[in-house]
């Protein structure tokens, strides 16, 4: 009766029940070749993808001449930083790794205390998890190490790892109220390290991906608080503050970053009195990145603030919390958590845009190294730009993918138990 009805309505009969353990052939048939059209699309796509992958693999392993990268590795990494001062960079990286480990350990301990993560997982399991989490970075560093021809980088990497591990082990034993000390300590340390690194050579010989990383780190750290303040200012009840913030945001969102960089490199003299020593180019670049990105951060944060239900503020007010405490304990943490993806997207943009500073201000950043390398005597006229640019791309990709993955992790951690 039922069969009769279905046939009668010209509906195809229900597929016969498939055995629960359908094999790979069955999967292919169902997902790739369900109909003729499906089959054609699958075949064409397979040919295109196969061709691209083949060419890419051939470039990577056979036709590509990576000698240019190997020879210029130091330039790509640190530019023309003097060779006999490189130990300063090693010291700085080691110090940063130690403090990073310390903070990670401290935070992990707090999570255990708060009961948001299970304590006491076996060390091997945690190591595997960490490598899995940071695999692009790990693979990238290993690649760089194998490209290098001297023991220096290996020793540096070892020092960094040891420092990070020591910090991580010590972190949990910090007193419970160390958060403020850690933050202030990090700021002092950062300032000290900048002084330490610029002492022998000033800014002039900074370069390579180190310069890009430095510009990005400085820009991100400085633009974030400024952006938050601008977002709050734009919602202020005082018309003057609101107007200033709106004007600022709209001004900086309305002009191209590259033009700002050029202007600050060339025309800054018009804007500051002649008796004042103009700041160096690196400082100007940091200022431009900070001011520019802060405007975007402000709009992102404002979006986060607006997405919060009014009830949150009202509940805090009803409890007697002051407006400042309501903002910084209730509203801001939730707003920021909601906009992590957008914020990190902005930070990733900033990191990539540091290559514009190289072009606008004549730094020898990673991108300019890539250009310059192809003009060296040994490589001139050999069409090696693809290799050299490809390597720079890889460096940036490692940084960006790591930021992106870490931000997703942060989102998950902060989203514990919330809708």
């Amino acid at each position, binding site marked *: 009766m039922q069969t009769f009805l279905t046939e009668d309505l010209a509906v195809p009969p229900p597929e016969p029940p498939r055995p629960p353990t359908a094999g790979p052939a069955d999967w292919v048939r169902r997902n790739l070749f369900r109909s003729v059209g499906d089959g054609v699309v699958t075949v064409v796509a397979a040919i295109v993808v196969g061709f691209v992958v083949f060419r890419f693999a051939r470039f990577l392993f056979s036709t590509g001449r990576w000698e240019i990268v190997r020879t210029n590795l130091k330039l790509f990494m640190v530019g023309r930083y003097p060779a006999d001062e490189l130990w300063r960079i090693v010291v700085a990286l080691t110090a940063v790794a130690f403090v990073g480990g310390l903070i990670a350990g401290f935070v992990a301990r707090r999570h255990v205390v*708060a*009961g948001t993560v299970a304590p006491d997982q076996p060390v091997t399991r945690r190591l595997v998890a960490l490598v899995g989490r940071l695999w692009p970075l790990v693979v990238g560093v290993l690649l760089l190490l194998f490209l290098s021809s001297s023991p220096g980088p290996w020793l540096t990497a070892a020092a960094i790892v040891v420092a990070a591990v020591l910090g991580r082990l010590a972190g949990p034993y910090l007193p419970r109220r160390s958060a403020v000390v850690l933050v202030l300590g990090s700021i002092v340390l950062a300032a000290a390290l900048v002084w330490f690194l610029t002492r022998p050579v000033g800014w002039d010989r900074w370069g390579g991906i180190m310069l890009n990383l430095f510009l990005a780190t400085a820009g991100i750290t400085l633009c974030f608080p400024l952006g938050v303040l601008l977002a709050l200012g734009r919602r202020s009840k005082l018309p003057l503050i609101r107007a200033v913030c709106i004007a600022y945001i709209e001004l900086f969102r309305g002009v191209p970053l590259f033009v700002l960089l050029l202007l600050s490199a060339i025309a800054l003299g018009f804007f500051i009195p002649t008796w004042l020593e103009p700041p160096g180019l690196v400082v100007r670049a940091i200022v431009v990145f900070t001011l520019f990105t802060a405007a975007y951060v402000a709009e992102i944060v404002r979006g986060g603030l607006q997405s919060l*239900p009014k*009830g*949150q503020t*009202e*509940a*805090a*007010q*009803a*409890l*007697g*919390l*002051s407006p400042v*405490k309501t903002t910084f*304990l*209730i509203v801001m*943490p*939730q707003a920021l*958590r909601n906009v992590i993806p957008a914020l990190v997207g902005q930070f990733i943009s900033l990191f990539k845009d540091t290559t514009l500073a190289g072009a606008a201000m004549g730094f020898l950043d990673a991108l300019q190294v890539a250009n310059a390398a192809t003009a060296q005597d040994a490589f001139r006229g050999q069409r090696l730009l693809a290799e050299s640019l490809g390597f720079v791309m890889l460096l940036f990709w490692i940084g960006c993918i790591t930021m992106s993955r870490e931000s997703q992790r942060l989102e998950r951690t*902060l989203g*514990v*138990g*919330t*809708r």
Partner: protein
Amino acid sequence: MTDTTTGSTTTAAYADATQVAGSGEVMIELDGVVKRFGSFTALHEIDLKVAKQEVVVVIGPSGSGKSTMIRCINRLEEHDAGRIVVDGVELTRDVRNIQEIRRETGMVFQQFNLFPHLSVLDNVTLAPRQVRRMPKRDAEALAMELLEQVRIPEQAKKYPGQLSGGQQQRVAIARALAMKPKVMLFDEPTSALDPEMINEVLDTMIDLANGGMTMIVVTHEMGFAEKVAGRVVFMADGQIVEVGTPKHFFTDPQEDRTKLFLSQIL
């Protein structure tokens, strides 16, 4: 209608919203309170006195100004004219007065409004620690005591998003109580709850009322009103239309609008 005499006596005793029941000590006084939103007047000269330890239930159709009235009491809305006095402190523009009244006044919202980024325990300890500067240890002891009182101590480490609506609302009550308020304001605390959770919240509120808390409760749960309310206030169009004991409203409502409204909710 054999009860008419008693009924009307009761009505007479409470007919005036400015009169006060029980001990006679006034906790909350609204005197000619006017609230406008632009050109729209949400409250027309509201007069109401609430005695210490009294429970007043406010009913009325949607848009009648019930929320607006209790939100004026802790300055979530600013009234345009009249006087509001809570425990002897008059609400003025002075920020210190506002803060003082907010410290003495707990509020429970229809949508709970718990802080989703804080654990239940942190939700409850936040205000005592930040506003009363209570040491963490004491605040947590107090919070656990209150969570016992609302019967969910085992949820302390969870986050609001992991609780049922009824549990969330009980946490919200504990959070408000943590400031040791003298007055509790409830704005339709059970309207967002599934029927099976309404009673767990009402029971907590009944405990609170029996413990001597001064309460203004906007709710249409007349069973609750019958159990603990000293008076019921019926509002319509921004005015107090009728005031009386719960019994008065069940047996002998006077105004036509009251009768119509009651016929809809009972």
